[in-house]
């Protein structure tokens, strides 16, 4: 390997660009090559849940074009380029017939949406939204339409339900769970969000799934497992994300739920790092903004020669349901303790207390949402 070889970053999402920015804060010279399957627009994925609320089209949510980023960050950007393999021994990234030598390689290629296999001939009306390119296609398809069905009542399903209602679309949400955002929100908080969304006009069909999607000529007809039939113009599939691990595993890197890295973001192969939605950092898979920003800062220092371990603080998640503002900081999985709930309509303050009485997690909605910062200070950080 040549010592002149560039740092290669795979992925132009929030992780890739934030890392490049952090590197450039301290080092303006080391060559950086960014490889992306995308068009290289810089945008922040959380903003895709706010298009109608903020009154913005897909391209207005983008913060900078690829050209502007190349100039701002002094990097070489390879757009519409698909990585086909990694050769860790040769320090080469494989791009089809081409090989790109790296000094350090950073995997920031994100997560894939989970796609359900559902019967019926209406599949072309089903959209998954995981990046700006997807969002643009969705917004184009939505022009002149009125009625959207969302499969999935997780964070993204709920955020999109709120945003589409703010854009005056009719919204039906179908999900197998009996509450919203199970696994993220304790049920009293989930009920508050549900009540807020219902007041806004969102219709929920819980404890059932879509079994069949038929092309109805002008849209789709959905058949649910409970026998119900629904008409919609188009369908959003928001049933979850899975970190992209296949290419890393094929190259012999250790993977589990994500690409396994330690707190220095080092994979099991020398000079290869991972961060963001594809990474499992010290056992944590956190597909949110704050963890990746923290990782980008630590990794930029490491790449500059000062090996730095990431230190996760508390990681509250803001849920963009303006009809019922919500913040949650889930307690550590399987931590002993119980929820203490103070609820009045859509205003809920739920504190998870450990056996010693300490607050280990919380969920706040409605007027209590403003307490998130104060509560975040009470919760012990992930890393001491």
């Amino acid at each position: 390997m040549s010592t002149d070889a560039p740092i290669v970053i795979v992925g132009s999402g929030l992780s890739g660009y934030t890392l490049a920015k952090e590197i450039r804060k301290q080092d303006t010279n080391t060559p950086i090559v960014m490889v992306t399957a995308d068009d290289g627009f810089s945008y922040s994925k959380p903003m895709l849940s706010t298009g109608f609320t903020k009154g913005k089209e897909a391209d207005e949510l983008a913060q900078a074009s690829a050209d502007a980023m190349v100039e701002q960050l002094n990097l070489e950007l390879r757009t519409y380029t698909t990585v086909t393999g990694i050769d860790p021994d040769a320090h080469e990234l494989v791009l089809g017939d081409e090989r790109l030598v790296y000094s350090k390689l950073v995997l920031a290629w994100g997560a894939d949406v989970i796609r359900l296999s559902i019967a019926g001939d209406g599949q072309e009306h089903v959209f998954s939204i995981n990046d700006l390119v997807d969002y643009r296609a969705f917004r184009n398809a939505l022009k002149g339409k009125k009625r959207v069905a969302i499969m999935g009542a997780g964070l993204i399903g709920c955020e999109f339900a709120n945003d589409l209602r703010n854009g005056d679309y009719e919204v039906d949400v179908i999900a197998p769970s009996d509450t919203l955002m199970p696994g993220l929100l304790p049920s009293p908080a989930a009920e508050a969000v549900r009540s807020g969304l219902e007041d806004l006009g969102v219709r929920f069909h819980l404890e059932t799934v879509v079994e069949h999607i038929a092309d109805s000529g002008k849209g789709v007809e959905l058949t649910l497992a409970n026998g119900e039939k629904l008409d919609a113009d188009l369908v959003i599939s928001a049933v979850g994300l899975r970190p992209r691990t296949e290419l890393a595993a094929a190259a012999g890197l250790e993977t589990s739920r994500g690409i396994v890295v330690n707190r220095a973001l080092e994979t099991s192969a020398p000079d290869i790092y991972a961060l963001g939605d594809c990474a499992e950092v010290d056992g944590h898979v956190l597909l949110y903004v704050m963890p990746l920003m923290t990782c980008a800062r630590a990794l930029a220092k490491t790449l500059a020669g000062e090996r730095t371990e990431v230190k996760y603080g508390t990681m509250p998640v803001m849920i963009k349901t303006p009809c019922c503002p919500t913040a949650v900081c889930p307690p550590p999985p399987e931590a002993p303790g119980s929820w203490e709930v103070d609820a009045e309509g859509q205003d809920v303050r739920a504190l998870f207390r450990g056996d010693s009485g300490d607050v280990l997690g919380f969920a706040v909605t409605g007027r209590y949402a403003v307490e998130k910062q104060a509560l975040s200070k009470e919760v012990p950080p992930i890393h001491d």
Partner: protein
Amino acid sequence: MKKWQCVVCGFIYDEAEGWPDDGIAPGTAWEDVPEDWECPDCGVGKEDFEMIEIG
């Protein structure tokens, strides 16, 4: 008076308006906003805000 934008989510802090929800009075300059203040929309810190042109 200046405006500062969160680079992550686009939230705008307007010095003229402050952010009373978090006890930051109208007219509070950016440098006087507490260092541990976080973006109300997405939770990132002050360092992830950039100054923008006054609209």
